[in-house]
């Protein structure tokens, strides 16, 4: 009985194994239907042992071929789980809207491929791998700075065009990956501009900084501190809040004890809204200033009125908001919701990518669309695009050049973000 069972099992396993191999060899080719690695790839495989691997990888280098009748896939790496999905879902929606609006490129349909990047390194790498495997032409994202830094490893390995709308930390472009660009503003720019505005325009001299212990929040506050103290201001103390907590009582009490004239916050909506309200509840009279992480109507809504009067830096913006207004109207028409923070950068990022595809894609003899990865990246690097978030030109590192824009500062007036600079 026992021997028989075991023999049966082994036979079954062998049979399955054969099936696996068969399924795989056919599976690989079917999987790479949408996009296959073209010949003449610029990148040489690392070593003999990895040749097979490189061959199976989809479009690791060289060019992407979209077969006739298939759609061009655009990857969207954003946060769909955890509380940060509050920002991540609108980013996805904005990108999908841009894709929908564009409709087709050279007769080929376009579709978005959203993947959850968890706003963190490991999940962003997985999302990147997934998008590479799915044969996307380019990636919009990753959403968060930490995730972007980590995901750039596989993405640059695949020479994948990557444009993030929201990863703002200086470290993201510090690695000098040639395939990466961002329509978000480098915090080095924004933090300095915020500090200048706080010190010079608002005349604040004594501030408390609060960060959410994230790559973004801490990074931004570090830049702010450097610029603010260089200008002659004083940072009374640096505090932190923990993402996921809702009661910052002791931190608020401590801030109150410092009697600052401004509290600056680096972080996202969930914590920012709670913090500003608890400061107000505690009777802290200092002004409150945040940045693009909270630049959203949801920040005001969730603060239950306490956000009134707070300053919100949105990064450099054009003074002319015609294009933004048009985008916001379209977004609202589509989703019945106001366009949130980073959505305009997301739509711009998507449009830049789509325009670049349009420019470099060629239809070959058999009616397939061929897109050369390097040419695509070069096309984006050369972009000069006037979008909803302003004029976009990239520098050598992939950061936005500040042209024709000032750092937008909004103030919450009557429950709305109102531009004051």
């Amino acid at each position, binding site marked *: 009985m026992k021997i028989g069972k075991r023999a049966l099992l082994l036979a079954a396993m062998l049979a399955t194994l054969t099936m696996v191999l068969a399924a795989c060899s056919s599976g690989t080719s079917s999987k790479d239907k949408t996009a296959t690695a073209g010949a003449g790839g610029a990148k040489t495989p690392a070593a003999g042992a990895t040749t097979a691997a490189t061959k199976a990888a989809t479009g690791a280098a060289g060019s992407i071929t979209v077969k006739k009748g298939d759609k061009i896939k655009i990857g969207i790496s954003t946060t*769909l*789980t*955890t*509380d*940060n*999905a*509050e920002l*991540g*879902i609108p980013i996805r929606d904005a990108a999908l809207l841009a894709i929908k609006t564009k409709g087709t490129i050279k007769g080929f349909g376009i579709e978005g491929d959203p993947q959850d990047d968890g706003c963190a390194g490991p999940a962003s790498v997985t999302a990147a791998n997934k998008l590479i495997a799915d044969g996307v032409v380019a990636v919009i994202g990753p959403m968060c700075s930490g995730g972007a830094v980590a995901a750039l490893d596989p993405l640059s390995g695949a020479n994948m065009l990557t444009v993030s709308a929201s990863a703002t930390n200086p470290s993201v472009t510090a690695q000098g990956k040639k395939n990466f660009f961002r329509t978000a503003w480098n915090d080095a720019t924004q933090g300095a501009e915020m500090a200048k505005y706080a010190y010079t325009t608002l005349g604040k001299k004594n501030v408390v900084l609060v960060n959410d*212990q994230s790559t973004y929040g801490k990074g931004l506050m570090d830049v702010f501190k450097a610029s603010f103290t260089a200008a002659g201001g004083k940072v009374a*103390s*640096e*505090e*932190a*809040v*923990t993402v*996921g*907590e*809702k*009661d*910052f*009582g*002791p*931190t*608020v*009490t*401590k801030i*109150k*004890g410092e009697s600052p004239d401004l509290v600056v916050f680096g972080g996202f*909506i*969930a914590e920012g*809204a*709670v913090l500003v*309200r*608890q400061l107000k*509840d*505690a*009777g802290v009279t200092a002004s409150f200033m945040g940045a693009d992480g909270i630049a959203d109507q*949801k920040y005001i*809504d*969730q603060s*239950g*009125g306490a956000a009134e009067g707070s300053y919100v830096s949105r990064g450099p913006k054009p003074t002319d908001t015609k294009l933004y207004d048009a985008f916001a109207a379209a977004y609202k028409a589509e989703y019945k919701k106001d366009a949130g923070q980073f959505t305009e950068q997301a739509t711009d990022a998507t449009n830049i990518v789509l325009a670049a595809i349009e420019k470099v894609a060629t239809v070959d003899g058999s009616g397939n669309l061929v897109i050369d990865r390097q040419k695509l990246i070069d096309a984006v690097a050369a972009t000069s695009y006037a979008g909803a978030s302003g004029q976009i030109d990239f520098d050598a590192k992939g950061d936005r050049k500040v042209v024709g824009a000032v750092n937008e500062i909004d103030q919450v007036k009557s429950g709305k973000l109102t531009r004051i600079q």
Partner: protein
Amino acid sequence: MQEWIQLLIDGITIGGVYAVIALGYTLVYGVLRMINFAHGELFMMGAFTGYYTLNGFEKHSSLNDSVPVLTIAIAIVLGMVVAVTLALVMERIAYRPLRRAPRLAPLISAIGVSILLRNIMLRATNAQGKVYPKVFPRTAVEIGEIRLLYVQIFLIVLSFVFLGLLYLFIQRTKAGVAIRAVAEDRDTASLMGINVDRTIMTTFAVGAALAGAAGVVYGMFVTTATSGMGFIPGIKAFTAAVLGGIGSVPGAMAGGYFLGISEAISTKFFGAQYKDVVAFVLLVAVLIFRPWGLFGKREDKRA
């Protein structure tokens, strides 16, 4: 000095929340020797129930303005009902089949429930934090520099009341004595004619009712409900329960306040980023001298 008093009040505020949640941990641990990791999610569900109830009143009536006492009471009761129902379903589906399984199996099952509830609510709310309507005036009592919101006083008082009621329930009522008996020796308890299953369900229900009510009041205090809001308080409450001596009701209460106050004070000294470090170091320090926690009794050899 006033700042210190304020910090103490801050600590008592959050400490009371920890204490109330910790009771659920400690009760369930007492009867089942099981860490109910999903307990913090009951707190979260309570907060959401509070939001949906109060928001419903806000949208469809003017009761929030005219008789806030009533709407708040209804919200709290509904919060308890939802949490209790969920806890009983949870117990029936995810824990009871594992009563005689290896002891870590229910832990993993509970982690599964926790992930499940968190993500269901994330999807149900489309990741939007829900903002409570203004039911409680956000005015404060002021004594010098010290400020206490009315809702905060309500939260503090209510946590004391809950703790007191629970203590009486456990010490004085027949069901309470049954819970203690089952916690000590399930077999012998059943020889006394105690229905062990029902007692375990009572235990879950009592813990859940406390967590659900705490969720509503805490939601009113912080004015928002998010799907992730139960996780950290859950872990903290677990810590508080162990600090006080897991299985001990007074221990859970003391542990909760101890933790809340130590967090507040360490925020002053080291900044909020280190408060958890301080809390855990204190925990280790306490456990080194009293391995069974502040109020715990030495485990007999069987445990």
